[in-house]
């Protein structure tokens, strides 16, 4: 029975919406907030890195741009009802997308290698700017956001629901892309860009659009994060490890899939927070991270979901093949040739 994707998606969203009503403890809601953040960002990264095949290593720069944009808009520490920062998020997303547009135009004219170089350099430049533009960002002293006036008992909930909304946006866009001409264009670019251009795909336009949307969403998540933390510093708001996390999660779950990035985020973010807390002074944090990354790339290069699909497909094929040979064998032995019948009796249980 095929469950239509709408129902599946709807079921997932319903679960997410109802989860907090189970009376979950604060520390768990806190964990969910971070998982949702990374799930959204990974889904957004997937648009550029997974579908288009352009591995952006600088997405964290836009995370930081989103965080600082929100901080700038709320320099005045007094909030009326605490929801203003959320209403302003679309503007933050637009800012991210608008900054991403020229970056994409410049860097996507070239190959994927140079694209990665430009994005990673952009990341460090944004970090440097965050440090140096004192008047704008507060520099190394950091930038403060107004304290969210939500009651302690339900503090995490507004953030949680806003992030659910953002995740639905990211996944919805991914879903729509996969089913549209845009999606086909992206995939064709990833497969062979020159050919794609040859057959008339507007490669530059498509790539730049995907990149802008992707970084716009990332910027919005950055804004939510800034509000949640309450105080941001350049080296944490614009942090290469955030990019690596997004990339790793998408890779783990499966690039170019709808659910892959979400799965990767659930596994890695929850796992990482748990490990860091429980294992305490395990100094091997970075080493473990890097090793997991390398193992995924080498052993599961396509990610969990596509690998599962491949295995299942192989098994189906084998089953079908076995079934076919079995049928053929039965046909052969079902004949009334006494020699073969005896043969069969001798083999299996006889009739005598």
């Amino acid at each position, binding site marked *: 029975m095929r469950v239509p994707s709408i129902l599946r998606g709807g079921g997932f969203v319903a679960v997410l919406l109802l989860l907090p009503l*189970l009376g979950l403890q604060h*520390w768990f809601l806190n964990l969910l907030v971070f998982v949702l953040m990374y799930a959204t960002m990974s889904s957004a990264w997937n648009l550029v890195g997974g579908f288009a095949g352009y591995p952006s290593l600088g997405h964290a720069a836009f995370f930081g741009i989103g965080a600082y944009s929100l901080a700038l808009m709320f320099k005045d520490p007094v909030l009326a009802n605490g929801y203003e920062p959320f209403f302003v998020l679309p503007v933050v997303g637009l800012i991210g997308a608008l900054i991403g547009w020229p970056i994409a135009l410049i860097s996507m004219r070239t190959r994927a290698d140079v694209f990665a170089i430009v994005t990673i350099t952009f990341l460090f430049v944004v970090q440097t700017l965050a440090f140096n533009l004192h008047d704008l960002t507060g520099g*190394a002293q950091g930038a403060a956001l107004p304290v969210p006036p939500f009651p302690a008992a339900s503090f995490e909930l507004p953030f949680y629901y806003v992030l659910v909304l953002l995740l639905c946006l990211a996944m919805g866009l991914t879903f729509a892309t996969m089913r549209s001409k845009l999606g086909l264009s992206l995939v064709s670019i990833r497969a062979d860009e020159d050919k794609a251009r040859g057959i008339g795909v507007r490669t530059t336009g498509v790539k730049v659009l995907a990149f802008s949307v992707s970084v716009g969403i990332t910027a919005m998540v950055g804004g939510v994060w800034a509000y949640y933390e309450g105080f941001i510093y350049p080296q944490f708001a614009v942090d290469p490890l955030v990019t690596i996390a997004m990339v790793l999660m998408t890779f783990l779950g499966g690039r*170019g899939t709808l659910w892959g990035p979400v799965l990767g985020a659930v596994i890695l973010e929850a796992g990482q927070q748990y490990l860091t807390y429980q294992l305490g002074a395990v100094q091997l944090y970075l080493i473990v991270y890097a090793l997991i990354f390398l193992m995924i790339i080498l052993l599961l290069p396509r990610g969990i979901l*596509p690998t599962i699909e491949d295995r299942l497909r192989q098994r189906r094929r084998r089953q079908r093949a076995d079934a076919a040979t079995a049928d053929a064998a039965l046909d052969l032995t079902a004949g009334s040739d006494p020699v073969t019948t005896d043969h069969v009796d001798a083999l299996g249980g006889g009739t005598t």
Partner: protein
Amino acid sequence: MLQSNRLRRRSGAVVVTAALALVLGACTSASNNGGASASPHSTTPLVIGASISLTGDFADSGKAVQRGYDLWAQEVNAKGGVLGRQVQMKLVDDASSPTQVVSNYQNLINRDKVDLVFGPFSSLLTVPASQVAKRYAYSFLEPAGGGPKVFAQNLDNLFFVQPAPVVKSGDVFADWVLSLPADQQPKTAAYTELDDPFASPIAENIRARFEAAGIKTVYKEVYPAETQDFSAIMSKVVAANPDVLVGGTQNEDAYAQVKTLVQLKFSPKFMFLSNGANSPLEFPSKVGAQNTQGIMSAGDWFPGSTAFGSDAFAAAYIKTYGGSADTIDNSSAEAFACGQLIEAVATKTGKIDNATIISSLHQGTWPTLLGDLSWGPNGAPSGSFNLIQWQGGKLVPVFPAAIAKAAPIYPKPNWGG
């Protein structure tokens, strides 16, 4: 590639399963209301939680803080604990990340239900962490978050366990310089400041006071943290020929500034470095012991201090961790002082819950191995640091007179002597 229907089905199933697993985990823990109880029964342990940076960029200082906390717990338990309860430190690692530190305090307070919490290392992590503590009405004694933004939050549950806010650590130098007879005071000053939440404000505070007193600023430069090459900056300092050089520094840049000045063969008459010059072993090893003479810095704890509990602390530290008094990192002393305060509140009030701690510490002064501490309503301590100077290869407190072990040497002798 675009997914087949089968994959969509499978992947949806996998994600829902994972989500269910998360929910199950949540429910089990939701029903698990165990953990350290808040009952005042005198034999249950007093669990104190803290998130410290055991890995990542702040790791070395984070470990010094850990040693301080653990040492205090060990010492106080040997004396019978706090109000008869044995102290258990629950220390977790935040990998120097503000995201993790928020989660850690959430977990400590809401999942493990610790009785009290202490602060993490660095203002960067203290700010978000203190908000979490405030939300759940936990007191927040913290040994390492003293930047202005920490106090700008106006949290009544926060107490910075050092003699004064970090930006004021240069004030004692200004106090001393301005106390000199007019003809011996410097006339011109240069300021080299690291762009950082602490270093630059310290130098700026000094500059405000010097300018008000008529000491002319002949050069000022704020440099970013990644600056590795100081030749350009220090050449300009040399060209301006100041009487006094005020460095708002951390460690590496302090060493680099001194080394560059040695190479440029310029020695100012007065030199103050807010950090770097106050580390007893690192500084001479990095710049050369013969170059340290006369350089000044600020500090809170120092070996040989006669403040409350200092000797016992130093002795216990050496016995537990080895080394000598000179190898003790100040962060350990500051962490230890947090514990001393808990003991003091318990002894004075007979209670040790968060509300009591918050209300008690806001009144009066409290003796610790850093000196007597008292706080304003936003957690800023109202004392002052000590001015220390390198004399004969050792760091010696020279001002104010009450704690001075030697007279200050000025003008600063030339390099190598």
